[in-house]
C-alpha cells in the first residue's frame, strides 16, 4: 500500500513536468502550427540563468523569478525574430526553423557556459525528503506537483477568463475571423510565446533539481519527453497534452517498478514502441480531440 502510494506520487511528479512541457509546446502549435524542437534548450538557458544568478549571490527565490522572466523574454525575442517571419508557411518550414534556432541558441550556451556539466546549488527544500510513516517523499516531488497545479490553474484562468485569453482561443479556432475583428496576429503570437516561455522557465527550475547536472546539450531529453507526451495526447489539444504528460509519467514509473533490471536499459525503446502502437490505434492521440488551446 505504501509502495503503491509512493509510486503514484512519483508518477504524478514526473508526469507534472512532462505535462507542463507538453502544454507549452502544444499552445504554440495550436496558434502557429509551430513544432518547436528548440523548446528544451529554453529550459537549459533558464537553468544556466539560475546558476549564474545564484552564484552571483542572489537569493534563490529572486534568482528563480529572474530566470523565469529571462526565459520568457528570450522566448519572445526568438519568436519575434526567428519564427514570426515564417508564420503561415507550411509547418515543415517552421519545424526546420526551430532546428536552426536550436543550433544557434545551443552554441550560444556552449560559448557562454562551456560543455562541462554544471550543478545548481538548490536550497534544502529541493533536496530534503519527507518521512510520513513508512512513506519517503522527496520534497522536490511535492514542489513539482504543487507548481504544476498552480501553473495549469493560471494557464486556464488566463486563457478562459481574460480578454487576452479569448483572443488566443479565437485565433486558434478561426485565425482569419480573428483578424477581421481587428486583432493583430502579432499580439496573439507574442502572448503565446510569452506563456510558452514562462512555462519553459518554470519547468527548467524543476527539471535540473531532479536531473542534476546541466550541459548545453541537456535539452534533448525534455524536448523528446514533451513530444512523446504531445503525440500521446493529440497535437494542439491542451487537455490531451496534460493527459499525455501524466500518462508518460505513469508509464515510466510503471516500467521502472515492474521491468527486470536487465531490460530497464531498453526503456526508451519500449516507450517509443508504445507510442507507435497508440498512434496506430488512435492516430489523433489518446484524447482524440481537435485543436483546442483551452
Amino acid at each position: 500500500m505504501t509502495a503503491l502510494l509512493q509510486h503514484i506520487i512519483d508518477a504524478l511528479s514526473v508526469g507534472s513536468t512532462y505535462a507542463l512541457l507538453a502544454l507549452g509546446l502544444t499552445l504554440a502549435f495550436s496558434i502557429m502550427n509551430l513544432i518547436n524542437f528548440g523548446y528544451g534548450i529554453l529550459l537549459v538557458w533558464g537553468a544556466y540563468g539560475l546558476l549564474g544568478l545564484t552564484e552571483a549571490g542572489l537569493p534563490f527565490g529572486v534568482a528563480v523569478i529572474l530566470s523565469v522572466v529571462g526565459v520568457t523574454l528570450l522566448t519572445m525575442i526568438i519568436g519575434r525574430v526567428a519564427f514570426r517571419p515564417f508564420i503561415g508557411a507550411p509547418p515543415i518550414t517552421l519545424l526546420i526553423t526551430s532546428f536552426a534556432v536550436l543550433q544557434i541558441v545551443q552554441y550560444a550556451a556552449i560559448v557562454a557556459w562551456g560543455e562541462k556539466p554544471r550543478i545548481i546549488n538548490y536550497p534544502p527544500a529541493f533536496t530534503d525528503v519527507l518521512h510520513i510513516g513508512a512513506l519517503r517523499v522527496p520534497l522536490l516531488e511535492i514542489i513539482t506537483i504543487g507548481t504544476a497545479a498552480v501553473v495549469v490553474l493560471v494557464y486556464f484562468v488566463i486563457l478562459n477568463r481574460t480578454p487576452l485569453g479569448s483572443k488566443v482561443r479565437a485565433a486558434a479556432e478561426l485565425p482569419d475571423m480573428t483578424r477581421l475583428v481587428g486583432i493583430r496576429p502579432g499580439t496573439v503570437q507574442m502572448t503565446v510565446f510569452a506563456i510558452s516561455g514562462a512555462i519553459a522557465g518554470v519547468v527548467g527550475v524543476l527539471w535540473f533539481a531532479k536531473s542534476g547536472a546541466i550541459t548545453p546539450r541537456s535539452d534533448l531529453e525534455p524536448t523528446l519527453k514533451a513530444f512523446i507526451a504531445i503525440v500521446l495526447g493529440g497535437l494542439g489539444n491542451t487537455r490531451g497534452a496534460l493527459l499525455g504528460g501524466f500518462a508518460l509519467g505513469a508509464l515510466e514509473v510503471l516500467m521502472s517498478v515492474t521491468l527486470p533490471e536487465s531490460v530497464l536499459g531498453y526503456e526508451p525503446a519500449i516507450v517509443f514502441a508504445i507510442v507507435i502502437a497508440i498512434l496506430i490505434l488512435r492516430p489523433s492521440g489518446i484524447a482524440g480531440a481537435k485543436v483546442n488551446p483551452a
Partner: protein
Amino acid sequence: MTEELLNVEAIEAGYGDTRVLHGVDLHLSEGEAIAVLGANGAGKSTLMMTIAGIVPSRAGRVSYGGEEITATPAEERVGLGIALVPEGRQIFGSLTIEENLKIGAACLKHRIGATAARKQVDEGIERAFTRFPVLGKRPNDSGSALSGGQQQMLAISRALMSSPKLLLMDEPCMGLSPKLGNEVYDILKALRSEGQSMVIVEESSRRALDFVDRACVLKVGRKVLEAEAAELADDENLLSAYFGIDQAVEQQ
C-alpha cells in the same frame, strides 16, 4: 453629391495560382446599399474578403472614405469602419456569446481609448441583447451551442459591435429556413432605415433587390451588369439572362 464611401477599382485577386477576380469595380456612397449577385463560385465571397483585407489584391485599388487601403491589413480595416459578416457566419465556438460580442469590439480600444471603449462595449452588448433577446437569455452559452439562426444573429451583432460605417454581409440567409431568412432581412431593413451603408451578397435573391439601392451581377470573376435595384426587379428577363440556370431553378 453624396460622399464616396467605398471605391473598388479594377481589382484582381485569387488564391495561389488561381485568379478569381478579373478586374472588378464596385462603388458605394455613404448611406447606400448595394447587392452583389452571382452564381456559385462567381467570386462574390472573394470580393468581400478582398474588401475586408483577408484576400490580398494583386492589381487594382481599394479606397475607403477617400483613402487608399489596398495594402492595409484586415486587422486595421475594421478599425477604419469596415465590418464583414462572413459566409458561414464564423462564430467562435469556443467563446461564449458575450465573448463573441466583446471580441467584435476589439478594435475600439485602439481607436477611442480604453474607457470610452468599455462604455461602448457595454452599450453594444445591451443593444444586441435588446435586438435579439434570445442571445441575452444565455450570454454564457458557448457559440457552438447556437442554432444557425442564432449564430447569424450573433454574427451580425458581433459586426455591429465595432460601429461600422460599412457593413459587408456575405449570404446572410445561407442555410437558414425561409422564415429565419425573413427575420434576418427584417433586421437588415431596420439597419438600412438607420442609414447603415451596406454591401450584401446573395446568390440570386429578389429579397435583396427590395431594399438595396443598386445591384450588380458577378460572373466568373467579372462584373457583367450593374443597375438600379428597381430597374432589375422590374426586368426579370435581364436578370435571368445573367443568372441562367440558377434563376431558372429558383423559379420552378
